[in-house]
């Protein structure tokens, strides 16, 4: 136990119901977030399995097309709002106070509400699976007029989105207040670990973009039930207006999912390369640039709706610009590894895979961002392949890396390294078998969100489905590894990884219930190790 960790003998902690439902403890709330995210990852994953089973062969096999479309829609909503975002917020809850030497989040009660909204919001959403007309089936993007044909599920969908938005906005406000108000005395902004930086920037994106989505879905609601005509040309509105509103939220949302992942690998790669992060300041500026640019590129999701040519050009060039700060980041991660004393424990394996596979997803994104080319790719499996590279082998690989990296801090035990490596290699291979062929399917013209397809797409779909099933089964191994680690294993030291730096490694493992009840003294040595 280092000198920075305070004594924990007045470690009063509530028990039972009160501990989890009335919590004001960032670690407990973080744990709840992470468990919830993992659970939803499997719920959404089960839906993905249904999708891949249906697509295993051409023809309609298992489900009717309406249900298939419901699966596509709800899978996306769950994975985005139920798995990746809560996992990111869970990590933020657990790690930001530890990284900046704060006793807890700035607004601990609101923090509890941010979490507890999630299970209730998903109760609203998932209850639609059992309703007349089925679950929402118009795609997670909720485009009118199609989404207005949703049955009884429609108001539940809208209110679930509102509810989730409330949760995320409160979470974002909390993170901003924590980072700007609760840092240990002497820690400047440019000394914060990069994970903290990426999360504070993500929080700005959340606050600025989610209310716009809330407004947009409110308009859907009034269009359906109150006779407004926002998205009906017969009354002077325009269905495309919804797409503008949706993607004004939707594109920053992409970075809401991705930026915390950038932060995670920016913590892990230096630890296992045993070198400081290359270009710390440029990483911060690149993250901020990506965030700002993300508000000016939304219409690249809408190139084929009939935008004026000037709009198409503007959004194409703005989209190309995002490649610059992203390139800075990829360069910096590689430069961090350059001549490092590298070891490849599971967190590092996932992080290195992240850098490579996220870059592949970035390149296919560049292709999609070129207007004339997008006219061919739009709404094909190429898009599906693109965003799954970014989100699954990108965001989720980074989240897996984070889980392995910080599990020793959370549980006090080392996970089973051999099983972790098996989990990594199986995930890596299966996810590429799953998604790489989808590029070819898309380029050959297979449309997305269709349960049946032309015979010419059969082989690649079968390969893809096999990869999908393998990936799904592999993730059960992850659950086993986590449970095994929580139950016991080699005791973790305070500094669980040789090259790990930062305040979170100065407190014991497992981190006591309360940490930094008095602000830590930041010595020069500690400050140098922060990033």
């Amino acid at each position: 136990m280092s000198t920075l960790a305070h004594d924990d003998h007045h470690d009063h902690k509530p028990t039972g119901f009160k501990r989890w439902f009335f919590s004001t403890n960032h670690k407990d709330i973080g744990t709840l977030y992470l468990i919830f995210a993992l659970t939803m990852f499997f719920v959404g994953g089960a839906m993905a399995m249904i999708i891949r089973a249906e697509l295993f062969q051409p023809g309609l096999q298992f489900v009717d097309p309406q249900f298939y479309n419901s699966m596509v829609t709800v899978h996306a909503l769950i994975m985005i709002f139920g798995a990746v975002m809560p996992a990111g917020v869970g990590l933020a809850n657990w790690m930001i106070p530890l990284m900046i030497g704060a006793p807890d989040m700035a607004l601990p009660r609101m923090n509890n509400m941010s979490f507890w909204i999630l299970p209730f919001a998903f109760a609203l959403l998932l209850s639609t699976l059992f309703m007349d007309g089925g679950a929402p089936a118009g795609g997670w993007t909720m485009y009118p007029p199609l989404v207005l044909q949703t049955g009884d599920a429609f108001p539940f969908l809208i209110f679930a989105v509102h509810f989730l938005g409330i949760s995320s906005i409160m979470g974002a406000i909390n993170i901003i207040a924590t980072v700007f108000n609760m840092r240990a005395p002497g820690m400047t902004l440019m000394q914060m670990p990069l994970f903290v930086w990426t999360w504070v920037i993500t929080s700005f994106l959340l606050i600025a973009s989610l209310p716009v989505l809330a407004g947009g879905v409110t308009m859907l609601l009034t269009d359906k039930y109150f006779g407004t005509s926002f998205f009906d040309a017969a009354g002077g509105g325009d269905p495309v207006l919804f797409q503008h509103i949706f993607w004004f939220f939707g594109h920053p949302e992409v970075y809401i999912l991705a930026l915390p992942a950038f932060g995670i690998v920016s913590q892990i790669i230096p630890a296992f390369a045993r070198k400081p992060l290359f270009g710390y300041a440029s990483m911060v500026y690149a993250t901020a640039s990506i965030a700002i640019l993300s508000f000016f590129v939304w219409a690249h999701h809408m190139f084929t709706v009939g935008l004026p040519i000037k709009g198409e050009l503007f959004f194409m060039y703005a989209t190309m610009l995002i490649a610059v700060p992203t390139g800075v980041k990829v360069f910096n991660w590689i430069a961090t590894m350059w001549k490092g004393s590298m070891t490849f424990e599971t967190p590092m394996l996932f992080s290195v895979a992240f850098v490579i596979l996220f870059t592949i997803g970035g390149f296919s994104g560049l292709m999609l961002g070129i207007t004339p080319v997008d006219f061919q790719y739009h709404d094909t499996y190429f898009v599906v392949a693109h965003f799954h590279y970014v989100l699954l082998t990108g965001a989720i690989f980074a989240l897996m890396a984070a889980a392995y990296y910080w599990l020793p801090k959370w549980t006090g035990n080392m996970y089973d390294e051999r099983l972790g490596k098996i989990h990594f290699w199986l995930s890596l291979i299966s996810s590429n078998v799953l998604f790489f062929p989808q590029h070819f399917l898309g380029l050959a013209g297979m449309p997305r969100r269709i349960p049946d397809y032309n015979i010419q797409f059969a082989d690649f779909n079968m390969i893809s489905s096999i990869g999908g099933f393998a990936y799904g089964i592999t993730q059960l191994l992850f659950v086993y590894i986590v449970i095994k680690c929580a139950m016991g294993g080699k005791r973790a030291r305070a500094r669980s990884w040789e090259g790990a730096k930062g305040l979170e490694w100065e407190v014991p493992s497992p981190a006591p219930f309360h940490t930094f009840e008095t602000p830590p003294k930041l010595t020069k040595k500690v400050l140098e190790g922060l990033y």
Partner: protein
Amino acid sequence: MATQEIYYIPEGSKWPIVGTLSLFVTFLGGAMMFNSVDAGKYILIVGLALLTYMFAGWFADVISESIAGKYSKQVDVSFRMGMGWFILSEVMFFAAFFGALYYARMFSIPWLSGEGQGGHNGTHEFLWSSFQASWPMNVMPDPSKYTQYNDVVPAFGVPAVNTALLLASGVTVTFAHWALKKANRTALSAWLFATVALGFIFVYFQAGEYAHAMHELDLTINGGIYGSTFYLLTGFHGFHVTMGAVMLSVILFRSLKGHFTNKDHFAFEAVAWYWHFVDVVWLGLFIFVYWI
């Protein structure tokens, strides 16, 4: 940044979970109502009652903890940041509706009347070729689907009076703040009372204006894109003014009870910020919805 030695962490509280439940019940009741389930409205009422209970209880706890001197300067700063960023999120919510208004006026209506090239004027060519752009747009592209209206609310009538009322209320709340800072309790209460009164008079006038628009001008929410943007923008704003006036009333009640000191009165300031926010949104409404 932290300067004090000991941090403050609040006790566990039942309010977050009560708040979550109340929102869940409210949304559930609302969704059931939209699906024409009879029980929906009762569930909605229960949800709203729970929500009110949660707000009252949560704030009561925070107020008593604050009076007991539990909060540090740092907690105060966290509250300030929380309120500030909450208001930004509200700004972005209104931005969506203003965006819809600008989009309709700048793009969708001109395109529907045949302007532009590149495919987005196809609707004009093939569906409603007689449609002509105008604002307020009281002839719909498809008149059978939406209600024709006779006229719209002119800017320089009640809306101009309402602008004056809200601007004046922004001044009176500032006077109240100055009075509080000088520990002049009588002036504080008087100016706060004036602010609350101006707020509720605004809501009263707005309600009268709605009745006039709906009954005499036939301008309803069904009146095409003008009716949609008009009622959603002014409606959400009116709702925010009502909430703000209720919040100001609470502050008035608390100041009459002797709460707040000339140094420490964040609740007052938070509500004042909120009030200025609804004021600024109104200026946007007055200019872009009523005037030009």
